[in-house]
């Protein structure tokens, strides 16, 4: 299966490839995108162009998108209910945009639709790496402390815990790979502690298999 990734860094992308392979239980061929959107506004703004590039100009089977929630509203299961989709949930925004793109893309003969999977790091992907290892790090804690002046951790603290530094070069991949290899050994815990951000990604990928 040929899969392209959109994420925050080269390191995240390399780590995601490991996680996706484990969730799909098969080896994937990584399609490297020439463009790497920088930050959320850029990801959202360039998604249409990247989606169409993958569909029309490559033989990619799937696109995996993983973004950080930062300080925005984390995804919640009830967002899927009619009329309850908030305007500021990044996962919902991406899902809605991908649905629109899928509906508006003129189908090519003999070209299967591009499969997509979306994950949301709450507040960042590094939280997944700490799932189970640090009892304070989980989606529920983050959601419960939204809007409070003092929170139990922030993105930089998560980076320090996950990589030993919050200044890891964006191109460095080794520490991400180590973290991802540890993560896939406890996928159940990650899915349990991050049911919406990581759970959504896992559910999307399992749907690819069916």
């Amino acid at each position, binding site marked *: 299966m040929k899969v392209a990734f959109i994420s925050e860094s080269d390191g995240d992308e390399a780590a995601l490839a490991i996680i996706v392979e484990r969730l799909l239980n098969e080896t994937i061929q990584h399609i490297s995108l020439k463009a790497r959107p*920088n*930050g959320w*506004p*850029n990801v959202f703004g360039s998604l249409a162009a990247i989606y169409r590039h993958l569909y029309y100009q490559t033989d990619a089977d799937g696109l995996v998108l993983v973004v950080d929630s*930062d*300080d*925005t509203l984390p995804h919640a299961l009830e967002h899927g209910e009619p009329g309850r989709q908030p305007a*500021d949930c990044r996962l919902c925004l991406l899902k809605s945009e991908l649905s629109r793109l899928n509906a508006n893309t003129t189908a090519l003969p003999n070209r299967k639709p591009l499969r997509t999977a979306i994950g949301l790091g709450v507040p960042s992907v590094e939280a997944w790496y700490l799932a189970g290892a640090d009892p304070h790090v989980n989606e529920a804690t983050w959601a419960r402390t939204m809007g409070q002046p003092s929170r139990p951790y922030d*993105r*930089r603290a998560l980076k320090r815990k996950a990589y030993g*530094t*919050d*200044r*890891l*070069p*964006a*191109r*460095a991949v080794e520490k991400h790979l180590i973290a991802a290899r540890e993560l896939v050994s406890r996928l159940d815990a990650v899915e349990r502690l991050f049911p919406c951000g990581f759970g959504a990604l896992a559910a999307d990928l399992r749907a690819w298999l069916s």
Partner: protein
Amino acid sequence: MIKELHFKNFKILRDARVPLGPMTLLVGPNGSGKSTVLEGLRLLHGNAGLDFAELKTIGSDVETVELSAHLSGVDAGVITLRQWGKTPDKNRVGKELVNREQCDANRIQSELASIRVFAFDPRKIQQPAHLQTVTTLAEDGSGLAAVLDELSSKHYERFDALNAEVARWFREYDRIMFEVPSPGQKSFMLRNKRDHHAIPARFLSHGTLVALAILALAYLPNPPTTVGIEEPEHGVHPRLLQDIKDALCRLAFPESVGETRPAVQVVATTHSPYLLDMFRDSPEDVVIANRDADGVSFNRLSELPNIRQILGESPPLGDLWYSGILGGIPAQP
């Protein structure tokens, strides 16, 4: 580490305090004093060679130009350089150390002497270096060939790591090589990955030369204690700016990449919104220069009111700066 520079009657900076951290990116309009801050660092180093008439704020009748460096860490204290203009025998800038607290003056002198400010000039970077006379990277980047040669002959592991980065940064090249244009001189070349032809430095693009100089600086075994860099993005493709930023971070935060040498304080100026974008997660690294009728002021981005909320859902940091919301833009007509 220098935690603050305080300028008085120093060119455009009549009375300006510049907060500095381990890594500082100075942004602001032309003529807002960013380069003057680097000039202050040069002066602390001691090789500026400027005189009073050139330093004092134009149009003022002041008699004293002053620059104070507030140091933190084990040598916490204040170093002040003063120049009295009307004293004939002191017409050159002299370094007057006014050390108000107990600290090791010799060590401070040695640290100040190690400050380097770079304004890389591709035409100088590409020039052959005299091996016997040039051992350090000059302000304009000349001597890079000698610096690289020394790395290759005395610090093999660093040179190998540097070559690995060269291959990653530039894609079409995979190794630094050398030639001897004339006895006692060396110049460098980059080996083409595809056919292994070596491209002499004089044929390399300006952006490649500047990027290579910054990369080499980041891999020195004993870099200066403080490094100022004028517009590191000069001539560099925007896609390479992430690597430039990572090289600066390698200097400032060596432990983050497993380096064991002491940290280098980095002060860089920029006009690139793309480079600024990469500092979104560390707003404490960004200092914005604002110029108005009252003069120039410098503010750390992280200390602007409600900056976290502003950054939260905003466009990229560079766009935000360009919009003017953060300040640091040319005055409106």
